[in-house]
């Protein structure tokens, strides 16, 4: 990997996105994400937070402005990016281990190396016992774990997560939040995480970007200076509650405008 050490992981400069001749979905977005930073995008529906992820992934093109990922165009940087969708988006005809290996398979990684990687990842996310099960046999939380393991399989430097835990119950969500932090501590990827949940954003992030809708634009930013390692007890601390309250207050502002 010839990662440009000095360059930020993501540079978004005055990006506007418009579908057809309709109203702008995003307007003059400027955002820089440093290497190994965990940034959450949060905001009400229609603020274009998922669109930003698609632009970074190169799955959509901006109407104007530029996006650089590790100094490259998003398309050229794809090998280093993994995307986790809101639904687990697993292939139902493949077993758990075959799903985890999908990315490696598409990138023509030899099968013996693939198997080793898959075994390691299933161990990492605690799914070894269901390696040969099919997605329909798994709970929502387990499916999401498979999805995360699949994203990690290609050894990404940048993880883009689009409300991955929105459909889960609170218990599973909290546990997966802790797991995400543990995985990141081990692997040191950069993350852009889209969510509706303020407490989730505070728990995970180094920085929270609050977006306002119609058209989608950056409204405010918060640095979250909670110490690592963050564990479940953090959620009951006054510092945690204070940040959640501040971010929530700002979120409500975006709606009142």
């Amino acid at each position: 990997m010839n990662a440009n050490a000095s360059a930020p992981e993501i540079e978004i400069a005055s990006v506007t996105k418009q579908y057809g001749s309709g109203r702008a979905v995003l307007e003059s977005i400027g955002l820089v994400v440093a290497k190994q930073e965990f940034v959450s995008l949060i905001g009400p529906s229609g603020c274009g937070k998922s669109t930003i992820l698609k632009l970074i992934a190169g799955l959509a093109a901006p109407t104007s402005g530029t996006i650089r990922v590790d100094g490259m165009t998003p398309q050229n940087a794809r090998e280093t990016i993994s995307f986790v969708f809101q639904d687990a988006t697993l292939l139902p005809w493949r077993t758990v281990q075959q799903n985890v290996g999908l990315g490696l398979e598409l990138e023509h990684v030899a099968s013996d190396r693939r198997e080793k990687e898959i075994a390691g990842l299933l161990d990492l996310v605690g799914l070894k016992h269901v390696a040969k099960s099919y997605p329909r046999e798994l709970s929502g939380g387990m499916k999401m774990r498979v999805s995360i393991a699949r994203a990690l399989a290609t050894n990404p430097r940048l993880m883009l997560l689009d409300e991955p835990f929105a459909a889960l119950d609170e218990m599973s969500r909290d546990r997966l939040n802790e797991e995400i932090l543990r995985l990141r501590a081990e692997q040191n990827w950069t993350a852009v995480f889209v969510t509706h949940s303020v407490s989730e954003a505070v728990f995970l992030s180094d920085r929270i970007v609050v977006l306002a809708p119609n058209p989608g634009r950056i409204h405010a930013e918060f640095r979250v200076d909670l110490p690592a390692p963050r564990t479940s007890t953090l959620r009951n601390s006054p510092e945690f509650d204070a940040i959640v309250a501040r971010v929530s207050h700002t979120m409500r502002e975006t709606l009142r405008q």
Partner: protein
Amino acid sequence: MKQRAITVLNAIAVFAALVLLWQIILWVFRVPSYMLPSPWAVARAVPARFPSLLNSLAITAEESAGGLAASIVVGVLVALFFAQSRWVRKMLYPYTLLLQTVPIIAIAPLILMWVGAGIPAVTLIAFIISLAPIIANTTQGLISVDENLVHLFLMHNASRAQLLFKLRLPNAVPDLFVGIRIASGIAVIGAITGELFAGSSRVGEGGLGYSILYASSQLQTDYLFALVLAATVLGFSFLFLVMFLEWYFLHRWHESARAPEAE
């Protein structure tokens, strides 16, 4: 297990009631046997004419299976072509509807003229009549892929071939089976109807449709009933075979796939 036994018992009870009703109608209305033979006469006709019955059955089975196999191969290829672009679909899809709406009886004489009477002509008719559902369902399965799955593949710089063979085709398999299930029934009907028009009169080449025609002209009504029974058995066997294959290939991952006896 108990549930299944009850289902089987129910089916047997209904069958017995129908046979009884049949016999009662014969007694009450004094129907002559050339119009409606007794259940007993039909049951006797089966072993009595067994070799010729089996021969007719085998020929019709061959024609239907041949037609169905051809429509699966051709149907999947056409669907793959249709899946390439919306433009192609818009232009050509109406013609598959044509396949479905043109009454096969109307074109049977034409096929007779081109191919001549016999097994190939009937196979062709079974093929034509069973093609449309395969094309329609497979195309649907190929194009209705979750957008995020396509995005996932794109994120790994998947090639067109990878998108087709690792995503679109497996995604279409359940729909393909729905198509085959519909097609299997009409392939048998197509073959029997085809034989009425294009069946061969050569010795040992008459399928069920041809033999039905022959039996009715000879007023062998008991044999005619036995032939109809055989046709029903054939249709059912096809359906069960397809449903078994569907279950075998899909039950591990697909929700709609149920054991054959559950339907």
